[in-house]
């Protein structure tokens, strides 16, 4: 048996009970969905695991706007018709490549956001899609995913109860690209681009890049460079060149910063070309 610091495992029936336990135990308590990260990245100070799977948060609701419960597994999302149909099937395209089938039966969408791994393929996709989170921190509220990720280092973490994806705009598309050393490895760099067209001009635009090796974030310089354009081939080439310098990349053991700069340019170009193709453009 693998040695562990876990001394209590509880499965509360209400969000209020979970929050009360977190308030009482502080850093000694950890919430889990599938529990994968609690195994792989065990925190020595954590002695209590709070399993969220009895809260009734495993669902995919809605037809246009999607509401996905925090403990919904990736396999359950992939099997949900509304999720499969969302924005040309972009959720399926990405989630089918996340981890293995065995892990997708365990891993949850709330868990992957809460863990916020820099290499996550899911987080840049959700950023590009404009995801919002329903959270609980003594009260229920809704916050953009961008805010949750920005606040997590400084303000403590509210409990994620639901992920909401907005109804797709009439003429819109999203594309995702990830670069890995092997099919089994995590991304050296990944990016997702969402573009809506209004009277032939781009806007709103959301472009997120992750694995830089920092946690994924939106890149406003690229978004601004696309907004208002017709997303033609020349625009895509210009924005892709801009990506080389606009994205803050670093060296780590997986790749050098120089390698990542090249990948950023290629990734952004591929995503924008795919989006342009889906929107009937010339990109």
């Amino acid at each position, binding site marked *: 048996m693998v040695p562990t610091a876990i001394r209590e*495992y509880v499965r509360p029936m209400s969000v209020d009970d979970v929050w009360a336990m977190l308030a009482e135990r502080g850093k000694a308590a950890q919430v889990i969905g599938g529990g*994968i990260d609690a*195994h792989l990245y065990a925190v020595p100070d954590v002695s209590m695991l709070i399993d969220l*799977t009895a809260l009734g948060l495993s669902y995919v609701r809605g037809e246009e706007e999607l509401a996905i419960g925090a403990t919904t597994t990736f396999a359950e999302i992939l099997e949900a018709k509304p999720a499969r149909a969302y924005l040309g099937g972009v959720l399926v395209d990405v989630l089918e490549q996340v981890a*293995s*089938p065995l*892990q997708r*039966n365990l891993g949850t969408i709330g868990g992957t956001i809460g863990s916020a791994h820099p290499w996550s393929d899911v987080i840049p996709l959700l950023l590009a899609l404009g995801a919002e989170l329903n959270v609980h921190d003594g009260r229920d509220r809704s916050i953009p995913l961008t805010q949750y990720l920005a606040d997590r280092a400084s303000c403590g973490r509210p409990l994620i109860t639901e992920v909401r994806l907005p109804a797709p705009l009439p003429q819109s598309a999203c594309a995702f690209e990830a670069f890995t050393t092997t099919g089994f490895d995590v991304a050296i760099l990944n990016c997702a681009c969402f573009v809506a067209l209004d009277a032939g001009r781009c806007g709103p635009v959301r472009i997120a890049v992750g694995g830089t090796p920092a946690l994924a974030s939106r890149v406003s310089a690229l978004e601004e460079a696309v907004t208002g354009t017709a997303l033609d081939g020349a625009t895509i080439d210009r924005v892709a060149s801009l990506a080389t310098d606009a994205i803050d990349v670093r060296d780590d053991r997986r790749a050098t910063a120089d390698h990542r700069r090249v990948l950023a340019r290629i990734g952004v170009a591929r995503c924008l070309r795919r989006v342009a193709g889906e929107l009937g453009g010339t990109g």
Partner: protein
Amino acid sequence: MTITLTINGCRKTMAIEPGERLLDLLRREGYAGVKIGCGTGDCGACAVLLNGRAVNSCLVYAAKADGGEVITVEGLERDGRLHPVQEAFLDEGGIQCGYCTPGMVIAAVDLLSRNPNPTETEIRQGLSGNLCRCTGYVKQIRAVQRAAEVMRGGGCDD
């Protein structure tokens, strides 16, 4: 703490440690078909069906399975007859050292329960969480194709 599990159709109440893995519990209870491999969810040798879904039992807390149903490779036979996936692995030679076989069979059973007529690509994707160090996966893929055919009622008698 105490949990109750239905393992291969047999309901059991067992004392566990709160941080214990389902993998360790199952092996302690004698289910040796559940193999210890990487311990990090990469190799799939420890796969079991938990409430009908194939999972890495090395990544599941035993406490999480409380009240649920587990099927290990030992629980796939019916009345002394191997599961069609097991038969197909034997018939197609999809086994070499055998260490990955239980997990691969479990993953294939899960795949075929949801997709009775998978393409080769879908089989490859369905087994992508199971590593085999001996073979090139070709015979396992053929075995799943054969099992799918048999389970759809198109198998032969020989």
